[in-house]
């Protein structure tokens, strides 16, 4: 019914935390089955923008949205829209790996169990599939019943990705998923995301320009003009264009590392 190739459409979205306007006039169309990256200097509201997409900002006291955020033709900030349902469709991976203090198996099975899947075999299958998709299965297959907290940072982050994959979302949001990882672990996660994009719509916040350039199909550059101003989108478009011939001079300066 709603077929224009866009998963998310943000229109003139403003975000407030109390009286503080964090984001202003955000217009963004996020394409299906593509990787969209969000870049910009620290504090410009990248994480906040990402958290608007699964309404995690609802947890912040005084958070308020103006404008519209549309997922598959429906405004997710509509009063009757189910937040729980939204988050089942839009999964999130956080900056710091945050596995539950449970076993590896229970971490991955958490979502499916939440949705009422009790059958042993089904769960086993989901856990194995998800861990395989997250390129973690080989490393942990012999210790599924041990604590997830004993894994390395990179493994924990892949476990968090597996945990999200286990609930088969349509969109995966990632907030600087590699910032705590070494280059090898980072590489693995990038490979993984490239594989996943045939099936999922992926939005990733990153501080790493190379990562954005390598990985994403579209790039949005956020910035704040001056301290205390809200963050805005300076430029949004095809990643190639943004990185080779940006139209805005500020984008060019940021990408070449000359400020921010």
């Amino acid at each position, binding site marked *: 019914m709603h077929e224009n190739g866009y998963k998310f459409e943000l229109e003139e979205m403003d975000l407030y935390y109390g009286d503080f306007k964090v984001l202003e006039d955000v217009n963004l169309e996020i394409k299906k089955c593509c990787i969209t990256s969000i870049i910009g200097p620290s504090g410009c509201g990248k994480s906040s923008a990402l958290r608007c997409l*699964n309404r*995690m900002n609802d*947890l912040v*006291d005084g958070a308020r949205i103006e404008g519209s955020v549309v997922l598959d033709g429906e405004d997710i900030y509509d009063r009757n829209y189910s937040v*729980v*349902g*939204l*988050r*089942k469709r839009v*999964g*999130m991976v*956080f900056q*710091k790996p*945050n*596995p*539950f*203090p449970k076993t590896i198996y229970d971490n991955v099975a*958490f*979502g499916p169990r*939440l*949705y009422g899947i009790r059958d042993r075999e089904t769960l086993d299958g989901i856990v194995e599939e998800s861990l395989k998709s997250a390129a973690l299965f080989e490393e942990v297959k012999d210790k599924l019943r*041990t*604590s*997830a*907290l*004993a894994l390395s940072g990179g493994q924990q982050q892949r476990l*968090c990705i597996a*945990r*999200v994959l286990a*609930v088969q979302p349509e969109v995966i949001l990632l907030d600087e998923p590699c910032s705590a990882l070494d280059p090898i672990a980072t590489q693995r996660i990038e490979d993984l995301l490239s594989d996943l994009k045939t099936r999922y719509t992926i939005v990733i916040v990153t501080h790493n320009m190379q990562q954005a350039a390598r990985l994403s199909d579209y790039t949005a550059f956020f910035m704040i003009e001056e301290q205390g101003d809200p963050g805005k989108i300076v430029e949004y478009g095809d990643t190639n264009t943004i990185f080779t011939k940006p139209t805005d001079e500020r984008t060019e300066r940021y990408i070449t590392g000359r400020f921010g």
Partner: protein
Amino acid sequence: MSTDLKTGVEIARPSVEVVGDLCEFKDSRIEGIIQQSIARNEKRAHFYDRVATVTVWTLSIIGLGILAFIIFVILYRGIATALTPGFIFGKPQALKEGGGIWPMIVSSFYLALLTIAIVLPLGVGAAVYLTEFSREGRITRLVRFGADSLSTVPSVVFGIFGMVLFVIYFGLGYSLLAGAFTLALLNMPTVMRTTEEAIKAVPHSYREACLSLGASRWETAKKIVLPSAMPGITTGVVLTVGRIVGESAAVLYTVGLFVRKVPVSPLQPAAPMAANIWHMYTEGALVSDWMRVANGEAAFLLLVVLVLNLGARLIARIYQKRLGMVS
């Protein structure tokens, strides 16, 4: 890029000279002053460090000494009696010598069990509501203030309140149930507060992860927050059991002082150990060996409380290990 680098170097060069000047300046004067001041400070810090160490050590040794002395006296006077099976499992005697304390032991644990059954859902429920569901505001502040005030009220006041309300007004009579309600009131603030602390210690990132998977707030509280807070809650409960078992004042007026048979129904009167000890020491008893019984019972009670406290620590430790927090 290379021009950038070049200009950078050009700017940097004069500043190196300035730094050089500063260094010489620092050598001749400031450094001497700083060195002196560091030496002086170090001496002073060292002195205070010494004084603090000695003071803290002395005070702890005095404190521990008193504690050890009390434990020693109680055990010395009663342990021989307390550890004989005939005494532990024996029937109390009102008229002749050689009585045991089995009904009192049962009374204590029965009372503790009933109390926990009442106080746990209430305390944990209140704590979960306060931390996970309510917005911080006047009502939550009021509840916390009330709980904190309540926990400073002496237990004998709770005893009399419980007697008036549960024993007389609600017509429960002297009974385990009346005592359990009273003790639930008495321990409610601590259970609530320890649970709250345990819940607050659960990292926010767990909640975020859980909610982001599409769990409701209630599911998050049930499946992530409470299990993660379990070690803290369990420790709190075991310590509370210790407090209940050791409580006499609130029990005197609500449960009873002496029984001969093991209580079966919660509506029966009973005689928890602490109250029974108090009873024998104040009113004496008709039996001539009441001292022996009271001392033995005191030693046994002390052992129970010690075991409970150690148990609480052990439980916390095991939980943490299982979660992989301690290697």
